[in-house]
């Protein structure tokens, strides 16, 4: 089978404009993956399925992954003017100081697809797509038109992670009930206060229940 670099070259030759990045996997199994850009994802997927040599006709697994916003502290050297007395005269002098700055790297949601070939009996080829952020730009193109097996799995990713797959024929919640509001597999998901009834609430549940009771009596929440 082709290596990831060869597959990347093949995709870029076949789909003009597609941006493909190899993501290396440091684990000993060396299952490297390809990050593809959302606007060309459907064309890339169609190429991977229909190419004679790759023939990745079997989409095995669709996974959602959540990566939170990362705060990165970096040390930066800054030059600024400092007042200083030189030879008895007040002067402005350049001085280099080291400063710690905090930069927030926006998080993203990721959809990972594991592809195999039934006809050529090789695989896995792993492709991933990333959303722009975790809050409002959470759309990715659905690959259900290419591989039907994504139908329920993309619904599951939508349900549990909140990635909106455009072009999906029937994007509804699948495991949670329809009235459910949040996406429970996100890393920052907090269970509601009255998530489940506990006859003898203790520890965290007791605290949450008491806080919830206080909120209800103050009229902040209805139930």
């Amino acid at each position, binding site marked *: 089978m082709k290596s990831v670099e060869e597959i990347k070259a093949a995709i870029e030759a076949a789909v003009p404009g597609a941006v493909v990045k190899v993501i290396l996997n440091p684990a000993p199994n060396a299952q490297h993956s390809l990050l593809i850009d959302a606007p060309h994802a459907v064309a890339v997927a169609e190429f991977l399925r229909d190419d004679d040599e790759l023939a990745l006709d*079997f989409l095995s697994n669709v996974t959602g*992954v959540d990566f939170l916003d990362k705060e990165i502290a970096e040390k930066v050297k800054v030059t600024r003017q400092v007042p200083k007395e030189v030879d008895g005269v007040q002067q402005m002098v350049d001085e280099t100081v080291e400063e710690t700055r905090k930069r927030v790297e926006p998080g993203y949601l990721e959809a990972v697809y594991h592809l195999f070939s039934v006809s050529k009996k090789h695989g896995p080829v*792993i492709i991933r797509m990333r959303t722009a952020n975790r809050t409002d730009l959470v759309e990715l193109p659905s690959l259900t038109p290419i591989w*039907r097996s994504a139908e329920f799995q993309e619904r599951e990713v939508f349900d549990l992670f909140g990635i909106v797959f*455009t*072009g999906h024929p029937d994007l509804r919640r699948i*495991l949670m009930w329809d009235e459910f509001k949040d996406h429970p597999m996100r890393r920052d998901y907090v269970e509601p206060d009255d998530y489940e009834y506990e006859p003898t609430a203790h520890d965290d549940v007791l605290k949450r229940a008491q806080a919830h009771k206080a909120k209800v009596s103050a009229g902040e929440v209805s139930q």
Partner: protein
Amino acid sequence: MSPSGIKTEKLAGWNRPPVIESDGEGELLEVAMGPHHPSTHGVFRMDVVLDGERVIKLKPVFGYLHRNHEQLGERQSYLASMPYTDRLDYFCSLTNNWAYALAVEKLVGQEVPERAEYLRVILAELTRIQNHASTIGFLLQEMGASGTPLMYAFREREKILDLFESLTGSRMMCNYMRFGGCRVDASPAWLEATRKVVAGLPAFVDEFERFLMTNEILMARCQGIGVLKPDLAVNAGISGPMLRATGVNYDIRKVDHYGIYDRFKFRVPLGDHGDIYDRYMVRMLEMRESILILNQALKDLPAGPVMDPKAKIRNFRPKAGESYGRIEAPKGELGFYLISDGGPNPYRYRVRPPSFINLTVLEDMCLGSNVADVVLIFGSVDIVLGEVDR
């Protein structure tokens, strides 16, 4: 065009279930089959639209048994998830253990001793036999053969579960495999008992087959019903006996050679028509091949340790990376996808459940057939709700 500017492609015609027109006489009837229908193997619902007896629409409804197994896996250490994998497909806990152990072993590059590999094969094939026997029993039960065929299957299943209990301490929740081997060694007495059980299995399969294979009712109700085409089956990610019943030769034991499956001689039974009868027949033949593998494995079982002495057990923190490990479970391709960030818990723990994905084509298979056949088609998919809803 969607708001983000992504083009939405047109769906290929065969990618969606066909639209069935009603004959225009009378009214359409909407029936919720389940979640407490006895044929749904647990709590599963099918919202069926009927035109007389004919199914013209079918939407599966999941989630009654959902407990967010994947998040449980992310909240605890790698090893602590092992007993939870038993609860996915509670008929085949040992193959679930194996798939999870395989994914973690791929993540850290862990070797498994010879004897443990053989024990894994023996247990996985015993699991396959008891799963297929009970599936066929349930199928006959749903056909109206109340009790008797199921009890024939369960008689044999009990013998196998007794073996599991004496080796692992539990009949169904075995929790037997570890990263780098197995938990306890098999005693000579256990191996002797296993040989005895395996020696009795061909007679059981012969008897089962003699009663069922040419049974007129079974043939009338199964042949030509619930047909699945091979190109749709591959595209929809169908795996296991259901895929092979359509004639596609894809067995992960042969393709990936995980464990030591390259050492055994066995054939992959294939169907021809992709109907219920082929699915039943493929399972029947797979039991025979499993007996062949069991005989070879029990003959060649080497002595030695069952756990790699260098395997890390305490303070188990895989380096950052990811791995996808999959095996041919009795129901299809069971995969575990793990992402590690170097911590003691997996960053992402994903189960690729064969039963859930095999239900993708349930609507396609049921459309146009009678409502009584829906029960059979559903039964021939072979699902366990613990795995579907996770």
